């Protein structure tokens, strides 16, 4: 069992997400930073079990009542296991009864904590990922207890630091391709969108809201499919970038589409940070 002594600012449980239910309007959810998520799972694989803690801004304090290996990826954060500092992107062993806590994130927003264990968590539409509209909690709370179904009882840890680039946390250019409504913008608007610096105004698991000075006269569009990474322009001139919990469809102009790498860069940015788009040439034409 893992006991949540402090929940942190916004800690959720995520697996790969729920697929196959978008036709019912159910978002995929899953990790915001899929690169960090994949890395955590690659460093500590356990069958098909991909559950992680997604920790936002401030990490939780956890009491670990089973001998478990764990790894932390994503945003740079100091890790403290019973007073001992631990490196990121490296497998560690937490003896039964140990206490895991985190310092202040130096770069990024979200870090991923993966334990080598199978937790007893309710599934909603085939996934344990938190998404309150389906009945799950919205986040972990102080006092929550996560019971463990099984764990492999491995204790081996890697001593050599895995050399994994955390550089993406410092990037501020997002690689994009034109979205389906790109052509609806005037050349001047396109230029403005690509050349302007956009400030992060607000962000959560549904999406990022960015500033812009573009004014579009909005046609009444039919709602279309939205995927994480799609960049939409609202009539009031704001940029909305869809992320993990994004709605599955919507009617704003879909002007750009982020690459998977760019999406990982984005979701590690805080309010106030500045971003620009970089057009990668359209690779394909029908």
């Amino acid at each position: 069992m893992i006991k949540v002594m402090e929940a942190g600012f916004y800690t959720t449980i995520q697996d790969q997400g729920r697929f196959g239910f978008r036709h019912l309007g159910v978002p995929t959810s899953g990790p915001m930073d899929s690169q960090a998520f994949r890395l955590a799972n690659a460093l500590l694989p356990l069958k098909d079990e991909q559950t992680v803690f997604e920790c936002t801004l401030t990490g939780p304090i956890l009491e670990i009542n089973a001998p478990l290996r764990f790894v932390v990826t994503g945003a740079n954060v100091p890790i403290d296991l019973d007073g001992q500092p631990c490196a990121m992107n490296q497998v560690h062993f937490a003896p039964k009864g140990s206490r895991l806590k985190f310092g202040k994130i130096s770069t990024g927003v979200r870090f991923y904590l993966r334990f080598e264990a199978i937790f007893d968590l309710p599934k909603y539409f085939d996934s344990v990922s938190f998404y309150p509209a389906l009945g799950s909690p919205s986040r972990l709370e102080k006092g929550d207890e996560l019971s463990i179904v099984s764990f492999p009882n491995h204790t081996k840890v890697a001593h050599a630091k895995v050399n994994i680039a955390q550089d993406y946390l410092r990037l501020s250019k997002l690689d994009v391709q034109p979205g389906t409504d790109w052509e609806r913008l005037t050349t001047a608007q396109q230029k403005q969108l690509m050349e302007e610096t956009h400030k992060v105004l607000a962000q959560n698991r549904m999406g990022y809201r960015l500033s812009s000075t573009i004014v579009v006269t909005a046609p009444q569009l039919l709602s279309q499919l939205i995927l994480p990474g799609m960049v939409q322009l609202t009539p009031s001139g704001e940029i909305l970038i869809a992320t993990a919990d994004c709605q599955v469809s919507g009617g704003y102009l879909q002007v750009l589409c982020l690459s998977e790498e760019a999406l990982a860069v984005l979701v590690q940015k805080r309010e106030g940070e500045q971003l620009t788009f970089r057009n990668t040439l359209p690779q394909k034409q029908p």
Partner: protein
Amino acid sequence: MKPTNILWINKKVVSLCFEATTGLDISVFRKVLLQHFPSLEEVTHSFDRVNLLFKSPIEEETILKKIAQLDWNQLKREQPTYYWEIPICFNEQYPNDLAQIFQGDKNAIDHYRTVFLSATYRLEFYGFLPGFGYLSGLPKQCHLDRKLTANRKTLKGTVAVGGEQVGVYPQDSPGGWQAIGYSPLPWIQAKQAPYVFIQPGEAIRFVTVDLQECKAIAKGIETGHYQPKKVLL
């Protein structure tokens, strides 16, 4: 009916565009598509697009070939033989944007409601939020422009109009559509299949209920005694 355009959304997603006015009957065609493309993870659709979401990156040529092999005529829609009765309450206790839109003109509001209630709607597809059904069939004189800025919170159960589309908010959510009434009926539940009771392609009519009836229905739903009504057309 063939796709009029093909949009390569990303490495794993392709959207097939159709004439919006023809009306797709993807509810039947979903199964065909899932069989025809074994590597599909999901099929979704909107009013005028079918979206193929693959498990892994796709090759354009292969997909184009497979698209050409399909008999798109199967997409023709059939006339529904029944409709679902959806209760709607216009009591002022519930948020309503009509007052503002018609600047308090009671006759205009009443007229809007009468026209709205006279129409038969069709559930085109679910999207936006879990259990949010996009309904078509709104008479032209009832079309309302979306709000310029989405409000912070549209309440669960709000019946809303966005342009030519109608929908019922299944949960509290920011929303840019105009609220015209309230419906106590939940459209989705997460426990087990079937997750929804109205299937895409099925017909819907709104039936007005007063506040008392509305509350009674809400209570019936809570206790599991209320069943949505299906009426022959």
